[in-house]
């Protein structure tokens, strides 16, 4: 554990047998078979517990969970707008703080959590999240990233991996690759831009086990506004058989394309550092080849993605996190 981790006091789940058994987001929702975003929902509220209020912005985790006029939520939950992930959290936190201070409701710790997808968090709602991370309210914003506007049947967003096929980036006869944007680095961007924000992390719902659950607990314990970006392999959008959802997450992380880390009070702690494993990072090809959305990639395309990932880990000052390059390699 890092110094920062040792100092942070929170109710850590030490083993799989200690994971709370009760569900607060339960069966009976219309998500895809194998949906990792649903797993994210289930895990975050399991880690947070029942003294929580949740706002969920428009996206798969709204429409698929509550279709129609129904709910799988056991804790209080409210819909919010696509770009309102940040502002909804601030509104709930401010309202609760005022009511407690004015003695209209009992004083207690109530977790305030808002979630948004990659479109709502990385693109549309970025200004609202930024505003939220500058406040002093205790809140957690979770951006669940399935690399597409999944609820509208899979369109590209700022967090879609380069080259992926979506309905906005189909493979055509003249233009084979329509999506040429490199995945936006949202978590690090937010950490760099909000020095008073004490906790920012990336996570994968199911790999490594317990990691996401504990990250949620850390975020809810540290105080102030916090942010977690989860990587959610999406069988519908990425085109793989639902039973392999866990595999895809693990492969993405092991390849280095999906960096796993947390930033606690300015300290970067790698959750999974592929450089430190015996085999090192696995080739991105092993991850890309298992998804139908990359079936059209050529050797050149894969080499490009590999090069970008190599740069992330070999050349950045803060590998996998922040694309700052030092002058260390330039001779005097």
């Amino acid at each position, binding site marked *: 554990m890092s110094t920062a981790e040792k100092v942070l006091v929170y109710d850590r789940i030490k083993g799989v047998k200690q994971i709370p058994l009760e569900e607060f987001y339960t069966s009976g929702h219309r998500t895809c078979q194998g949906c990792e975003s649903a797993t994210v929902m289930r895990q975050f509220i399991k880690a947070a517990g029942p003294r929580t209020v949740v706002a969920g912005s428009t996206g798969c985790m709204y*429409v698929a969970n509550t279709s129609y006029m129904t709910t799988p939520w056991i804790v209080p939950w*409210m*819909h919010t707008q696509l770009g309102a992930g*940040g502002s909804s959290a601030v509104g709930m936190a401010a*309202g609760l703080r*005022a009511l407690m201070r*004015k003695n209209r409701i009992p004083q207690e710790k109530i977790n305030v959590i808002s979630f948004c997808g990659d479109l709502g968090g990385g693109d549309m709602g970025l200004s609202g999240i930024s505003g939220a991370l500058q406040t002093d309210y205790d809140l957690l914003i979770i951006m669940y990233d399935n690399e597409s506007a999944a609820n509208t049947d899979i369109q590209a967003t700022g967090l879609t991996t380069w080259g992926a096929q979506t309905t906005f980036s189909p493979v055509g006869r003249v233009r084979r690759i329509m999506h040429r944007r490199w995945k936006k680095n949202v978590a690090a961007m937010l950490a760099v831009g909000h020095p008073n924000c004490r906790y920012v992390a990336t996570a994968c719902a199911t790999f490594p086990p317990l990691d996401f659950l504990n990250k949620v607990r850390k975020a809810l314990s540290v105080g102030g506004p916090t942010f977690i970006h989860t990587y959610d392999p999406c069988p519908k959008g990425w085109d793989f058989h639902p039973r392999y959802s866990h595999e895809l997450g693990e492969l993405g992380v092991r390849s280095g394309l999906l960096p796993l880390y947390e930033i606690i009070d300015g300290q970067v702690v790698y959750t999974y550092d592929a450089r430190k494993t015996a085999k090192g990072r696995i080739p991105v090809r092993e991850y890309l080849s298992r998804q139908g959305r990359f079936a059209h990639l050529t050797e050149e395309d894969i080499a490009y993605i590999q090069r970008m990932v190599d740069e992330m880990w070999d050349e950045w000052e803060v590998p996998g996190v922040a694309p700052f390059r030092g002058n260390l390699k330039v001779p005097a």
Partner: protein
Amino acid sequence: MAVAQPVGVYEREDLLTGCQAVAEGIRLANVDVIAAYPIRPYTEVMDAISKIIADGKLDAEYIVADSEHSQFEIVKHAASVGARAFAGSSGTGWMYGFEALVVTATDRLPVLFLVGNRALDDPGAFGVEHNDALAIRDMGWLLCWVATAQEALEHVLLGYRIAEDKRVMMPMALAMDGAFLTHSQHIVRIPSQEAVNRFLPPFDLAERRLHPDNPVSIAPQVNEDWVMEIRRQNWEAARRARGVITAAYEEFNQVFGPRYKPPYYFEEFQTEDAEVVLVGMGTVAMPARTAVRRLREQGHRVGYVNLRWFRPFPTLELRDCLRRFRAVGVIDRDFAHGAPDDGGVLLHEVRSCLYPLRERPAVVNFITGLGGRDVSIQDAIRMYEITQEAARKDRLDGFVTWVGVRE
């Protein structure tokens, strides 16, 4: 307006702009959460509130938002946990957050907003125009125009009282002409906290509030099996609001003295024996009433109807009022390009309200005062003359006159 009122109801007088008067109302209403974002001409209300909070006169959360969309969402979610909330905007800012405004109504959350009426972009212009607030009219909002700073303060209190009523539960837009009311200073009598507490009950969202002790899910996704019923519920609430508005004014008068006369939705000025009236909203009342006085000196029987409540529209009351006259001139400080007869928004509302009558007054329309252009007393007199002419004719050729445009 000088009427005897119960002792101890007003604690002092102050010179306040329309914005500042609203800020005093927010203080007295013990609002819990305020979200601010700057746009002329409503911004001053937020300046004033921040000072009130900084000086310890109001205990509230004050958040400076990153955009109007965030601003409106913040107060909506604050209301969802049971906090009394306030925000506001003007012109294009109001439009920026429009999505949030629509859902606040369909979520049935009684947040109060100040709309400092301002012309919509493009081009950018700061002057008064009513289209910003009017844009919300179909969505299930309470919408009213105030014409004085005193009214502005009092309608913050009335606003929360009506909006938060369990039979209503709709957000409220308090519209105020930019510059002419937002920025001009008038003497305002400020109620005592004790009197306000007698009038305004605390906000109670009951079984709809978001709290761990009340596990509900608010606004799940729906399909064609549900939307129509939900709309019907909200339609019904707007209808019920009329009765609640009347009750609220009566309660207000009991606490503060007979400040408002029935039917409360509008105020008539010298209409008892009038042949011809103008109807308008906001500060255009001032040149209009002055024109009435001058014309009356010359023996003309004219009057003015100052419409306060636009939504819910006081159909029956206004119909009963206007049917007495031979001609009605509707003043639109807004535009509705391409509308029937190319008339403004209020024209269509008034016409529609009069339609069921077998015998109706002639109705003409004036589009005036757009983008902050003055409506002078002379302009008002001209409007009366045109309306009087309409009263004399058997048939009208044109309905709309642009008053005050250079042509």
